[in-house]
């Protein structure tokens, strides 16, 4: 037999008996329960608590010998999983990491070892052998970070000279006949049934050719009356063929203490009981012939060991970070992300969510549009949202502005920008929101009443410039036309994507501003810029810029690339076919059908997302209504320039229009002046009447739509 051959070659040194230590195995439920206990019961109480784990002797080969603790560990009197052995332990939960480190591990182990030793000496361990298989769990729960530090100890008493086996271990089926094996199984099951349990940790055993008898440890004297050969069974969680598990270690001390003087040799059956593929087997159990050392006849406690090594194989505690599954904020974040991922997994595999989630959005205006845009951005998982608004929340606001409540109106009303941030954070703590309670200087609204107003305006401009620089997308969601001018100019100059939404009574426009081509370099830019401004100044034509460059024969308003698209001020918001009213939307803005802001706000965000999904982003060619039947340019579909909606007809159209070379906001001459003169140019615009911009661009007034309307109407008509 193979074992005989290897046995012959073994030296006495090799026949040392070594035990496989327990590996701690913790279920997530245990940490959840510990958290609850700490918060609700223990609080600052550091006194040891009794807990319960279990081990199992039916694992397939290759799995570590485990002591498992699950959520039920704190219910010491609760049931143990079927066919598992319970193990009792003491939980030492400290309040701080320092206390965790400072705990005297040696003293803790010795205290526990002493109790085991006393139970062995007194014989109490015979009646209650579970005392042989105990553990200590030292923990610190950092409930701010959901980090759990822990260290297990499985106390074991050591024979001063170690333990020897007189021959190599043998597998049960090598010595037992199939008949004996089935008799053994029957005897074990019978013992279980008699005791009303499903696993017996330690037992005594006698066997003959066709019969096996078993008894509990406490029945030793009655059981072993005339037998020279002593066989002891241990429910063994180890799967190694050459080593027993940890529970045997203290049992051998008990045997040595109680009967060591009479016994020289003890046969140990490491009972392993596996059900694989529906077949139960115990034949892989292992038999050890252990030479039982005599213990000195004094009551000094044996040396003890048992602290678990960490995953690095060193003596030290372990730490597990459970913030992903326990921190409610992290759970909310991962659920939000999950929802979005599902969109990608199920419907739009090529959706680039990172692009959306990482986009920093600046919302100018925190009113009906701002609130709805913010909520839709949150739905898309956008984390970075900044509000600018100078208004306070009034009593009429909460019903239409979903980020505010009645309470917010009291005492003069909270600032919208800060209240919106508070509410976003309440809705989703993972958001990174900021609010700026500030005004945006407007053309025709003088700022030069005093030095103070002038410097305030300058500060506001600097702040707005800074905010626009720091964000990726600027949403224009204000209630006046004039207030959109300054951010349009700044964003055009900084080449930031602008999404603009404006409401009428039952009409709306949602549009992206044309995104100018990047500044090539300072010198080249200055040259081209001056030439363009010269040419535009000398030109008397009012045709939109770039029209001359377009390929002859192609429609003026199809396939306009993103950099040639107009801005809000190139394209008035008068609804096509509705120009008889002769009023711009913003003049009517305060009265609109209540659903309109939600529709327009949602479309503004969806437009942004579609733009981001396009490989060229803001430079994407504008899709028009005609493209609705064509292959869409992005996984989400079209990327229009404008969406104009008519609620009365429940209809949307997708016009596109070119940038206007005399635009009061994005024409080269305006941008050039802004970039060269900065605030001195801007303050002229703020302080002057409309004629200033008119003179500069050669256009009619900013505020007198009547004259410009003809041009804008024409472009609108043609684009449809």
């Amino acid at each position, binding site marked *: 037999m193979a074992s005989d051959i290897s046995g012959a070659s073994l030296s006495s040194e090799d026949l040392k008996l070594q035990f496989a*230590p327990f590996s701690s195995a913790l279920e997530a439920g245990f940490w959840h329960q510990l958290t609850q206990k700490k918060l609700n019961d223990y609080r600052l109480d550091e006194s040891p608590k009794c807990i319960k784990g279990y081990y199992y002797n039916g694992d397939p080969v290759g799995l570590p010998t*485990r002591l498992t603790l699950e959520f039920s560990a704190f219910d010491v009197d609760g049931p143990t999983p079927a066919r598992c052995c319970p193990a009792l332990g003491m939980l030492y939960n400290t309040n701080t990491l320092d206390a965790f480190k400072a705990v005297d591990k040696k003293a803790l182990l010795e205290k526990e070892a002493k109790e085991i030793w006393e139970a062995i000496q007194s014989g109490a361990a015979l009646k209650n052998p579970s005392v042989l298989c105990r553990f200590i769990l030292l923990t610190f729960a950092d409930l701010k970070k959901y980090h759990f530090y822990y260290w297990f100890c499985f106390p074991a008493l050591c024979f001063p000279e170690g333990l020897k086996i007189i021959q190599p271990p043998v597998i049960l089926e090598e010595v037992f006949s199939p008949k004996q094996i089935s008799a053994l199984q029957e005897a074990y099951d019978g013992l279980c049934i008699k005791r009303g349990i499903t696993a017996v940790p330690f037992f005594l055993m006698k066997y003959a050719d066709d019969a096996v008898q078993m008894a509990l440890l406490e029945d030793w004297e009655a059981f072993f009356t005339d037998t020279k050969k002593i066989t002891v069974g241990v429910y063994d969680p180890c799967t*190694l063929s050459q080593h027993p598990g940890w529970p045997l270690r203290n049992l051998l001390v008990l045997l040595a203490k109680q009967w060591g003087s009479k016994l020289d040799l003890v046969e140990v059956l490491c009972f392993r009981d596996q059900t694989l593929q529906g077949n139960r087997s115990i034949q892989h159990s292992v038999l050890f012939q252990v030479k039982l050392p005599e213990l000195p006849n004094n009551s000094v406690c044996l040396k003890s060991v048992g602290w678990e090594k960490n995953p690095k194989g060193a003596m030290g505690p372990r730490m597990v970070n459970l913030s*992903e599954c326990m921190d409610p904020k992290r759970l909310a974040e991962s659920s939000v992300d999950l929802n979005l991922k*599902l969109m*990608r997994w199920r419907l739009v595999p090529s959706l680039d969510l990172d692009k959306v989630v990482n986009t920093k959005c600046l919302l100018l205006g925190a009113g009906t549009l701002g609130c709805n845009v913010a909520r839709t951005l949150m739905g898309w998982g956008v984390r970075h949202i900044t509000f600018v608004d100078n208004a306070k929340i009034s009593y009429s606001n909460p019903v239409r502005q979903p980020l505010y409540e009645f309470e917010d109106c009291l005492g003069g009303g909270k600032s919208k920008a800060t209240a919106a941030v508070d509410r976003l954070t309440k809705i989703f703590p993972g958001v990174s929101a900021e609010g700026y309670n500030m005004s945006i200087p407007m053309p025709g609204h003088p700022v030069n009443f005093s030095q103070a107003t002038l410097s305030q305006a300058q500060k506001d401009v600097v702040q707005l410039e800074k905010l626009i620089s720091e964000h990726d997308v600027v949403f224009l969601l204000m209630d006046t036309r004039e207030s959109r001018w300054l951010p349009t100019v700044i964003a055009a100059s900084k080449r930031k994507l602008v999404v603009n939404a404006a409401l009428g009574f039952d009409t709306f426009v949602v549009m992206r501003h044309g995104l100018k081509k990047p500044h090539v370099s300072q010198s080249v830019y200055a040259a081209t810029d001056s030439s363009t401004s010269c040419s535009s100044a000398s030109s008397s034509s009012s045709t939109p810029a770039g029209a001359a460059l377009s390929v002859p024969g192609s429609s003026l308003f199809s396939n306009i690339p993103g950099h040639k698209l107009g801005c809000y001020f190139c394209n008035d918001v008068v609804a096509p076919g509705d120009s008889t009213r002769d009023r711009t939307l913003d003049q009517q803005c305060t009265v609109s059908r209540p659903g309109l802001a939600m529709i327009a706000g949602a479309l503004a965000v969806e437009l942004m997302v579609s733009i981001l999904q396009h490989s060229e982003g803001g430079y994407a060619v504008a899709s028009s209504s005609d493209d609705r039947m064509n292959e869409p340019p992005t996984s989400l579909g079209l990327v229009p320039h404008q969406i104009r909606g008519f609620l009365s007809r429940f209809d949307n159209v997708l016009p596109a229009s070119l940038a206007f070379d005399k635009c009061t906001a994005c024409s080269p001459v305006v941008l050039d002046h802004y970039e060269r003169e900065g605030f001195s140019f801007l303050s002229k615009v703020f302080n002057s009447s409309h004629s200033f911009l008119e003179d500069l661009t050669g256009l009619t007034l900013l505020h007198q739509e009547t004259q410009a309307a003809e041009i804008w109407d024409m472009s609108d008509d043609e684009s449809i």
Partner: protein
Amino acid sequence: MSCSVLDEEQFRLSCQLLLQRSDQLGDGWSWEAVQGSEEGYLRKTALRSVPSDWGPLHDQKGFSSHPQPQTLCDSTGHEKEEQDPAASTGSDFLRAEEEDAGSYTVTNSSSLVLQYEYHILFSCSYGAPVLYFRAFTLEGRSLALEEMWSTIHPNYRLCLQNCPLNAISQQEHPLLGQPFFFFHPCRTEEFMGPVLQAAPDQGRPVNYVLSWLSVVGPVVGLDVPLQYCTALHSTKPD
């Protein structure tokens, strides 16, 4: 009636039969009822040892707001950011204990042991059972989706990830509200159809849930013993 669609009653019946046999085989399935509702699910936990050399991860690109350790080889990945609390706990006594001659330590770095929890639920919309599962390290930390993929055998992994929708993804458990991995049921009818159609010709009964489980289970380490089936044939002739 479309024979490859399962209704809730048939699902319950299939589960009952599966449970009966599981009890006989000691396979560990149990029925978990949801408090205050008629609904419930089959549950089983299992331990699984996953080789750590199952190749690099092929995660879908494009969404990684919470970067996770990319392999499972280093289960202590999270620990590295932290100051090692062991530093100040070392002592002579511990060093002595490290050399305990009576203990035999297995150093097994070529595999990782994971605790799995499997749930079988009924999906009304697909008329099919759905396998939900999650996996934990022995420390109790649950695996992220990217890590979960690295526990799937490479042969399965490539095949599952190459279909337009990843067959395994993550979503909230419909009854528990916690994040779970799950096997998408959209293809279930495809492979169950032929099984169910062939059954009457071959004159053998089919336990829908059992047959289905024997297909999807092994992918995520859940083996279905053959004894389930042999028993069903002999003891449940109808």
